[in-house]
């Protein structure tokens, strides 16, 4: 019932947007190359779906995305566990992280090309940088916020490392880590496109640059819509997964905050 209502609302708002877009086009104040009409854009989408261009670019992008993201998740979580556990080391690392974190991954691009060359590497590295910080920070804070009572209980029963890490700390910190992983997913997706726009010869970002270079504004817009929709789908899938895991962790978690 609720989901039905929600999807009706979504359809209505998207439909309204398309109508407004079409009306603006109909005023004739914009040239076709500045603002292509919905029909032209959708035909463009259909064309690149049909001839396989989209699928090819998507495959490349997704492989880069996955590589960068998984690397960031692994290093972010492992480092986060170590640093969250060792407060004194973290107090040295934290200031450096605070300086690096606000820097857009794109700013690193000149160095990335020098250090990693061209091809897939720049986009992967940019995705890695984009995803790494939120994952690291949420893991550190997750480990730091493990309820003292769990540690007391573990201590009482004589649990030692590494059991303490795997049986208590990691699961107790998991909801926060999952939050960070989710957050990082969105950020990484944003920078996937950016990374491919500056340093790649394939992928969804390149597809847009390529369309611009051949003055196909309809395909530029088509690319934008596709990236948005794919990002949304990705986000929803991860949210489903996250909710399922959190449910397993128990409602009590939220009650205890």
């Amino acid at each position: 019932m609720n989901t039905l209502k929600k999807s009706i609302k979504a359809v209505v708002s998207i439909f309204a947007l398309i109508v407004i877009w079409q009306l603006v086009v109909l005023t004739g104040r914009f040239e076709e190359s500045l603002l292509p009409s919905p029909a032209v854009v959708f035909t463009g989408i259909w064309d690149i779906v049909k001839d396989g261009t989209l699928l090819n670019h998507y495959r490349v992008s997704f492989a880069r995305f996955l590589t960068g993201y998984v690397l960031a998740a692994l290093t972010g979580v492992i480092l986060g566990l170590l640093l969250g556990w060792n407060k004194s080391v973290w107090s040295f690392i934290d200031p450096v992280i605070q300086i690096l974190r606000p820097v857009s991954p794109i700013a690193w691009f000149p160095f990335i090309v020098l250090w990693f060359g061209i091809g897939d590497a720049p986009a992967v590295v940019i995705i890695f940088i984009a995803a790494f910080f939120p994952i690291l920070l949420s893991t550190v804070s997750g480990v730091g916020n493990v309820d003292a009572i769990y540690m007391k209980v573990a201590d009482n029963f004589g649990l030692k490392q590494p059991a303490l890490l795997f049986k208590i700390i990691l699961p107790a910190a998991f909801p926060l880590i999952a939050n960070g992983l989710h957050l990082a997913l969105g950020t990484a997706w944003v920078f996937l496109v950016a990374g491919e726009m500056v340093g790649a010869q394939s992928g969804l970002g390149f597809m847009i640059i390529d369309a611009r270079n051949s003055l196909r504004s309809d395909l530029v817009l088509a690319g934008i819509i596709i990236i948005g929709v794919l990002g949304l789908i990705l986000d929803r899938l991860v949210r489903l997964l996250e909710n399922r895991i959190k449910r397993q962790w128990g409602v009590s978690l939220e009650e205890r905050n």
Partner: protein
Amino acid sequence: MYITISDASREYYLKDKGKMTALHKVNLEIEEGEFICLLGPSGCGKSTLLNMIAGFDRPTSGSVKIHGEVVTKPSENRITIFQNYGLLPWRNVLRNVELGLEAKNISKKERRQIAEEYIELVGLSAYKHHHPAQLSGGMQQRVALARALAVDPEILLMDEPFGALDAMTRMSMQDEIERLWQEKKKTIIFVTHDIEEAVFLADRIVIMTPSPGRIKSIIKVPLARKRDRTGNDFIKIRDRVFEEFGFKDTAEVDFFI
């Protein structure tokens, strides 16, 4: 003597207020198998004393000895049950009860078998695959009991274990803990600020008063088990305790005695 607490004090040094005495020169001897209730108003040092026996905390002067050995750290031989249960929300009942057994060198199969036995003992077999969040407060406290008993400790330390339960559940949990105590022959030290609870459960009631926290008196409860909460002897002792706290006119008490 089994547990010997001699001249144990616990002082805190606070930045702004200077020295603060949480517990002042406590002397107490406890026999094996005794049921002791620590009774007193908030801030009189009940938790402090219990934590020192558990080994989570140490006296700043004096000593706590068990079997003649000074307590310096927690041990699986003395399990503490906390007011908010300390169950792991990400584990189901069975896996929660298994936690303490995982630190011991026993096979998976045996672990499961022991856990099921103790879950049966507290009457929760039908709920062994539930997560803590799906259980009522009383049931969660039973799980904590099963988990504590499963490692077969000599001493159970309980800090206001039934404080969060409603009056009815509370009484049935009191029956339950008395039954388990008789069946398993544990030494139990039980913190409460409920006078009736103390009279119902304790062999001896240790009455404590605040600022500084210390033992005011110790009252023996020579009533046969299972005690009748409405019986004359019960009420006499209850009034005696009320009198200790100055909640009752002496004249009226004289009338009962």
